[in-house]
Every structure is written in C-alpha cells, then in structure tokens.
C-alpha cells in the first residue's frame, strides 16, 4: 500500500506545489481545473521521478510555513538595510567580509533552503560550499563582526530548518 503510494506520488509535496502552480496559472479556482491540476501534479513528478531519486524523508509543512513568514519579513527589512548601505555608505567605509558558517544540516534540500535564505536576507550572499559540505561560505556586504553574522544565521535559520527536515 505504502509502496504503491510512493510509486504513485513520489513527491507529495511536489504534487501539491504543482497543483498550486496550475491553479495560479489558470487564474481561476474551479473543480475542473483543480482536478486537472492534481492529475498533472501526479503525472509530472511520476514521469520525472528518476531525476529526483532520494527524496527527503521527513518534512514539517507547518513549520515550513512559519519559517517562510519569518524569512519574508527578513527579506523586506534586509532590503531596506542594503538599500541604505548602498546609498549612504561610501565605498571607502564599506567593510565587506567573508563569513564561514559551519553546517549542522545534512540534507541537501535543507542546506539549499538555508543558502537561499541567507542570500535573500540581510547583507549576505551564500557563495560556496566546502568540498565535503560541512561549511557554507557567506559574503557579508558590510559588517564589523562576522562572527555575529554567523551566529545569527545559525540561530535564526539553521535551527528552524533542522526542525523542518527531520
């Protein structure tokens, strides 16, 4: 039963995403469209499942949603900050820095979300992964204290992600 389910829905979350995308594309919510979206949401992941072999095992959808809200808020704040830096801080006063973030996360999906979050939020861009995947290289636009940046990242985002990906 479970195996059959997995065969049919290799990536339930993906199916959900696709159904939502379909509905957004159609720009109307009708029973027919949703059904059609679900059908596509099943067929497409199934047809391309060979290219996503090791799907993440556990995933807390609810916590993911709250994480998303936090990040969205941070994005808005971050952008104002960066805009301010760009407009006001002269280049001579700018103090860019490399920040190395040691990673506790192991799942590729989780690390990717973390890296993405870092890029979208205050003054930081995730630049590279170490050769065995234990650290993330982050570039900060303007900071006096790289360690603080690192701790912020680990507390605010990585910790939450560890709860989402069990």
């Amino acid at each position, binding site marked *: 039963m479970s195996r059959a389910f997995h065969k049919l829905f290799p990536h339930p979350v993906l199916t959900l995403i696709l159904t939502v*995308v379909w509905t*957004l*594309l159609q*720009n109307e919510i009708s029973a027919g469209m949703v059904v059609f979206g679900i059908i596509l949401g099943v067929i497409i992941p199934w047809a391309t499942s060979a290219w996503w072999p090791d799907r993440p095992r556990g995933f807390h959808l609810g916590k993911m949603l709250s994480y998303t809200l936090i990040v969205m808020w941070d*994005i*808005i704040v*971050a*952008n104002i900050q*960066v*805009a301010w830096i*760009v*407009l006001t801080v002269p*280049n001579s006063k*700018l103090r*860019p820095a*490399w920040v*190395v973030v*040691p990673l506790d996360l192991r799942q590729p999906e989780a690390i990717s979300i973390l*890296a*993405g*979050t*870092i*890029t*979208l939020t205050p*003054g930081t*861009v*995730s*630049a*590279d*992964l*170490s*050769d*065995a*995947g*234990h*650290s993330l*290289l982050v*570039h900060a*636009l303007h900071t006096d204290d790289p360690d603080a940046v690192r701790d912020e990242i680990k507390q605010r985002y990585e910790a939450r992600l560890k709860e989402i990906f069990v």
Partner: protein
Amino acid sequence: MTVDLILTFAIAALLIVGAIFTLVGAIGLIKLPDGMTRLHAPTKVGTIGVGAMLLASMINSYVYGEGSMHELLIMAFLFVTAPISANFMAKVHIHRRACDQPPAPPRDDTWSTLDTPEEDKEHVETTA
C-alpha cells in the same frame, strides 16, 4: 469604492517603491567597489523592486480587471532562482580570483569551487 481608492494609492506607492528599489539595485551595481559587493545590490534590492511592481500589477488587476494571482508565480520564480544565480556568480568571482581569497573552511580542505579535479588542472590556451 474607498477600498479601491486606497488600493489605487497602494498601487502608485508600490510602483514608486519598486522603481526606487530597482534603481538602488542599479546604483549599487555601478557604485560598489568589487564583484562580490556588487552582487548584493541587484540580486536582492533589484529583485524586491521588481517584486513590488509585480504586487502593484496584481492589485491593479483586482482593482481594474478580473483579478489574477499570476504575479505570485513570477515572484516565486524570482525568489527561488535569485539565490542560485547569486551563488553561481559568487562562484565565478571566487574561481576567477576577482575577490579576496576566502578563509579556509574549518572542517574540510577547501571550498568546492577551488577544488579543481586533478584531470582539469592543466589547460592550454587555444590560439585563435
């Protein structure tokens, strides 16, 4: 009626805000001193600028038309892809030594971009 009025003001505001963010992104692109710092401005500020315009457009569609949430999809695309684009461009800077040498990672040997496989180490300049 008033809701529409407020929303219209909101549209105008979002347009201006979006445009300003876009401009700041472009200013950053011109002004900032090196490749890595320049990366910050457009990938974030610029993206949010376009995001604001998209939002304006979405509201606009509800005020003046049948309404649609298409713009959400575009925004999602932008926000999902921007980090990867930024990541690649950062890798380009690191690879081309167009930025300060990053510090070594604590547990591993080096950063993946600098970890050129053995068979790729030598190269020849093709004479055109």
